[in-house]
């Protein structure tokens, strides 16, 4: 009996062992990968759809009003050109003023932001010093602070000396527009420049120094040319951020027409008086301005990379 049973037991053991040593299946990887990318695409696509839909809604609204104006007019083609909400907005001298002020103030605040962001980003990226973590945290304050609080803090700051001496020429004047935009935009430029310098190999700078360069020569001849893309990105980001700035402007520079009115203020003022058509038209002008700056800097950046 024992003799008969033992081969069967052995066979059973062998089967169990071969079952154990058999490689385990990994499941349907192909299907799993497809589901993974489908989920990624759906989640990401929802946000992209939201952005595009918002812009399309603005454009459609303006187009609808243009068609309405054309159908009510005896000369539809002429009306389409001259009586669409954007043309009406552009013919308004107050809006033209706000476009110019926006262009000038955004460019100035973006240039100032880059000028300030370069040394801060460089020092944070290359050197360790006491209080570095604190400085890093302070530089994030304008990003996390509610915009209205930035404006209010600026307003209060200009009540104290030495700022109080120039308060008459700054507060509720054009310099206040630039300062309010700069205060927030610069924080974004600093983040961009720090990350740019983090990605530039410090070895190049060390070689330049060993070749006889001073720190400033190594920075100007080697580091800065390598940071061109980062500079362009910082400028674009600061410019776009300045264009969208509203809260600090309202508190610190006011919303006086033909004085401290920029495009974001115009949208607010037009909405306040119930002129949604003008508000949407100005919004589209802002979209056009931001996209133009983005495209120009991207093309410039790509051309630099190709050369």
């Amino acid at each position: 009996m024992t003799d008969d049973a033992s081969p069967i037991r052995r066979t059973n053991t062998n089967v169990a062992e071969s079952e154990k040593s058999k490689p385990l299946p990994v499941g349907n990887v192909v299907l799993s990968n497809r589901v993974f990318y489908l989920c990624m695409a759906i989640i990401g696509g929802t946000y992209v759809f939201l952005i595009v839909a918002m812009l399309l809604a603005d454009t459609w609204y303006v187009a609808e009003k243009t068609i309405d104006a054309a159908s009510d007019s005896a000369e539809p083609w002429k009306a389409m050109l001259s009586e669409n909400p954007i043309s009406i907005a552009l013919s308004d001298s107050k809006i033209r003023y706000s476009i110019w002020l926006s262009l000038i103030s955004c460019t100035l605040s973006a240039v100032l932001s880059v000028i300030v962001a370069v040394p801060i980003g460089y020092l944070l990226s290359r050197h360790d010093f006491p209080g570095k973590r604190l400085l890093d945290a302070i530089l994030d304050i304008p990003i996390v602070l509610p915009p209205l609080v930035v404006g209010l803090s600026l307003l209060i700051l200009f009540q104290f000396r030495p700022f109080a001496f120039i308060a008459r020429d700054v507060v509720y004047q054009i310099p206040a527009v630039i300062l309010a935009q700069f205060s927030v935009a610069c924080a974004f430029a600093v983040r961009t420049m720090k990350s740019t310098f983090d990605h530039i190999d410090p070895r190049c700078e060390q070689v330049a120094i060993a070749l006889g360069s001073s720190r400033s020569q190594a920075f100007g001849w080697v580091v800065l040319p390598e940071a061109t893309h980062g500079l362009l990105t910082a400028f674009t980001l600061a410019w776009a951020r300045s264009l969208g700035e509203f809260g600090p402007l309202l508190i610190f520079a006011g919303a006086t027409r033909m004085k401290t009115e920029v495009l974001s203020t115009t949208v607010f003022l037009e909405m306040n008086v119930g002129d949604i058509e003008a508000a949407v038209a100005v919004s589209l002008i802002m979209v056009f301005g931001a996209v133009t700056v983005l495209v120009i800097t991207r093309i410039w950046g790509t051309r630099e990379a190709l050369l």
Partner: protein
Amino acid sequence: MISMEKLCVKTGAFCLDNISFSIPTGAYAVLMGRTGSGKTTILECLIGLRKVSSGKILINDADVTMLNPALRGVGYVPQDGALFSQMSVRDHLAFALLIRRASKKIIKDRVDELASLLGITHLLDRTPPGLSGGEAQRVALGRALSFRPKVLCLDEPLSALDRETREQMCELLHHMRQQTKVTTLHVTHNPEEAETLADCVYRIEGGQVLEVKQIQ
């Protein structure tokens, strides 16, 4: 002549203690050691990129321990070349001379001389992104030699190259050495490079530098 006297360096948990050795003027010295043994640290101390805790570094009998790296007159070729991506090869060779405000004629002559010595005349108008590993190392070598340094430091310059290119570079380094007679410290972990190039070989082991091949 390069001399290190009782050199101590501390970087975090890593420590090199009481390092002493000297390389005669005009010699080609190879410093060997395992990865993490501290050979690059010694090289960086000589260039001035790393602070020394105690001890002395002498170049041609002048104490350079606390001297700014820009004033030491040491040519440096890092492992990956570290070329300046926005500059042409010509600008690389002219860089150190432009810093020293040399005249246009001197710069042009020196650039042509180096380009011909290193066989990179056809690359002068190219930028680093288009160069092969061997070409990039030639440019890095030319850039380091351009200002006729007292000392040349090479940090594993051939480690990223294929066998054939490495052999060509070894020949080039040998030729360069005969032409320039510059005192050289070459750091590597490859015994073949030491065999081919070195006048004297040093090995770093257990935090100590031992001379394993003396100058003839």
